């Protein structure tokens, strides 16, 4: 069904609202092509989109990496950016440091990281002030997509 060992990389530019969502969209298309369950694709697509938006909203630049293994998928989002000063606070629904412009566009609801946590089976966040952030999300393939 899947293609173990497949790795796809997508660059994401900070502040590029026009292209935002394209990396997540390509990940979704790639997963559909290799026959991943629709419910799993949905979870990965939402999580990847939120990770991509976080790079666009907060970082200078970064990338999304999709890794496909036999029984699981992994999405890694790493960026060069300000880092997250307080991860626990950032995980709280409603907390956001997005700009006024971003909020006017409907971003900055403070639901990005909570959505990513909800959609993935495991999530780890490594962040360094003024350097950047790396988020690793794992998704089990062989479930029914319900979280």
């Amino acid at each position, binding site marked *: 069904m899947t293609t173990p060992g497949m790795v796809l990389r997508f660059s994401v530019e900070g502040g590029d*609202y026009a292209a*935002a969502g394209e990396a997540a*969209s390509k990940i979704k298309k790639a997963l559909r092509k290799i026959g991943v369950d629709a419910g799993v694709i*949905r979870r990965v697509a939402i999580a990847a989109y*939120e990770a991509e938006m976080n790079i666009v909203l907060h970082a200078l630049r970064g990338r999304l990496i999709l890794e496909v293994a036999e029984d699981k998928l992994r999405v890694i989002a790493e960026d060069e950016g300000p880092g997250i000063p307080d991860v626990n606070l950032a995980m709280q629904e409603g907390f956001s440091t997005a700009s006024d412009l971003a909020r006017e*566009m409907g*971003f900055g609801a*403070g639901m990005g990281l909570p*959505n990513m946590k909800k959609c993935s089976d495991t999530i780890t966040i490594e962040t360094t002030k003024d350097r950047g952030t790396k988020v690793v999300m794992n998704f089990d393939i062989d479930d029914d997509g319900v979280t």
Partner: protein
Amino acid sequence: MNLKKVLEKTEARIITGEGETGRECRGFYVSDLLSDVMGHAGEGEVWLTIQTHSNVVAVALLLNLAAALFTAGAGPDSTTIEKARAEGVVLLGTSLPTFEAAGRLYRALTEEE
């Protein structure tokens, strides 16, 4: 309910996806916060919003929404329209305020039951 009925009930026009009026609509979601929509809107639903920038297309595409319905006369720019066409995302627009549009659709849904 299909998109044709959504168009009738909300006096909406089709902006993109002219051939898709038979598309089934499984429900509705109303929000202008994109992450709220990402977290809560379901596949096959119609999303009512006044956000019109191109990220609306990305959200609709990623969630497999039946359509995005711009309310209160909000109209997308050419970038949004081009992106929607390229990705096969249906965009609709109504001059009704969000509350009025949602109310009419809710009533139509309950009448169907």
